[in-house]
């Protein structure tokens, strides 16, 4: 469904992506993992149209979308939940969701989708007329995901969905992502929480210095690479049981 082929990208003079190749098949949940500054967020930015790749192609459903503006990309069926959620704090929850449905422009559909979101995120229905900035971190994350879903995406991209959340909420967010995945959503996710990512992902890519260092199913990755110490810059030399992202 989505394929980044040999993508290079830079911010000013700094090259972040050095020929990255990532593939996401329909219905898959794929995680990009790696340490800070490895190029995970930049990879999503090139897909979302925020950053124009300097070389390589981004093919989505058979079409090269590299370099298209973000407002066009979302119409192709790619929705983004950015790092820090980027909800609109001064707008109400309902207004945030309405903007999420901007490309649909169908009132009936909107009402129907809104109800669906309430089933998925009951807390949002209680907070509908509240300014989004007054929500807690976990609620804001739910709103950001709901807002992205309102555009009926074929591919959902999540950037660090668990960042800054209390441990109890982290589990909740991952359970939610897993649920969306089971219901058929194709998801590309960037995470620093390696343990949780590998728990729910079908496949994962380990990104380091703008390149794919390793990839495969969670089992393959666990078997062949010492994910934590080799790629996440952890200082502990002895591994504890299992893989821990912290």
């Amino acid at each position, binding site marked *: 469904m989505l394929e980044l082929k040999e993508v290079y990208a830079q911010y000013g003079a700094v090259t972040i992506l050095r020929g990255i190749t990532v593939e996401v098949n329909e219905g898959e949940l794929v995680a990009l993992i790696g340490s800070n500054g490895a190029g995970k967020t930049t990879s999503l930015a090139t897909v979302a149209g*925020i950053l124009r790749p300097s070389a390589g192609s981004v093919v989505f459903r058979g079409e090269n979308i590299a370099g298209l*503006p*973000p407002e066009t990309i*979302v119409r192709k069926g790619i929705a983004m939940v950015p790092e820090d959620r980027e909800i609109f*704090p*001064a707008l109400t929850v309902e207004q945030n969701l309405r*903007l999420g449905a901007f*490309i649909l422009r169908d009132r009936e559909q909107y009402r129907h989708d809104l109800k669906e979101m309430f089933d998925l995120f009951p807390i949002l229905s209680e907070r509908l007329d509240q300014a989004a*900035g007054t929500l807690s971190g976990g609620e804001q994350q739910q709103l950001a995901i709901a807002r992205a879903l309102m555009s009926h995406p074929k591919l959902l991209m999540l950037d660090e969905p668990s960042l800054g959340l209390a441990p109890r909420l982290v589990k909740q967010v991952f359970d939610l992502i897993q649920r969306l995945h089971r219901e058929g959503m194709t998801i590309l996710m960037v995470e620093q929480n390696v343990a949780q990512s590998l728990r729910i992902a079908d496949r994962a890519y380990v990104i380091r210095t703008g390149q794919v260092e390793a990839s495969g199913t969670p089992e393959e990755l666990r078997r062949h690479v010492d994910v934590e110490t080799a790629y996440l810059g952890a200082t502990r030399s002895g591994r504890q049981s299992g893989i821990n992202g912290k």
Partner: protein
Amino acid sequence: MTESAYFVMDVLSLGSLYALMALGLVLVYGILRLVNFAYGELIMVAGYSLYLMDGSPLPWIIMAILAILAAVATSVLTERIAFRPVREKSLTAMLITSFAVSTLLQNAALLFISPRSRVVPLPDIFTHNFMLGGVLIQVRDLLGIVVSIAMLIIFTLLLNRTVLGIALRAAADNFRMTRMLGVPANLVISVAFAISGLLAGVVALFWLGRTASVTPGIGLEPLIIAFVATVLGGLQSLLGAVVGGYVLALMTVGINTFLSQDLVDYRQAFTFGLVILILLFRPEGLIRAK
């Protein structure tokens, strides 16, 4: 009693104009982070449009609407022609471009019309006044207040109730995210410039109405007022612009009223001194963005 009635009246009439001016400037700033230094020239354009229609058989209200439309068209066209090509380049490029547009428009007025001031046609009602409870009220001031407040109300409704209005507010807060939700950048920016021009056009009617004349450099003072009001209110918020406008008017009228006669010539220095003081203690402006 009468004294304070005049005071309130002055603050309201001046503040309403200031608020509209500031709103027009901050709307574009919020989305592009551009202080549009050609904003004052929109007021000039509306003024010269009125001047050029002087003596035509059109009723004044039609002339006024056409003048406002001229400001809107100028605003939208400058964005299309001047700002859009450099938008992706850098903020500095846009800022310099806005100076260029400002100079260009002023020089066009100098060249094609005249460096001297020209008379702007105004309706008779602007010079009327009446007594209300012992207070002499200028119809022009009252109209200015009513029109401004009506526009603020309509504007608020549009920004809260319509999808495009909500998209504008969202874009002023986080343009990138708004685009990621599918709101086209060009649409939002064009609408912002159109509204900016509309506000400048309406302001022009009452601003020029005070002296009934227009000069090529007439836009400078409203630009500075709008800029100071937005900085004072908080550059990130539309509400801040409105609050900033009224606060600046309160300060201006207050200084005019209470300063001794021989110091009134320095009123601008006092006003800006106060602004600096406020910003020292509240650099983010009176209204916080979030």
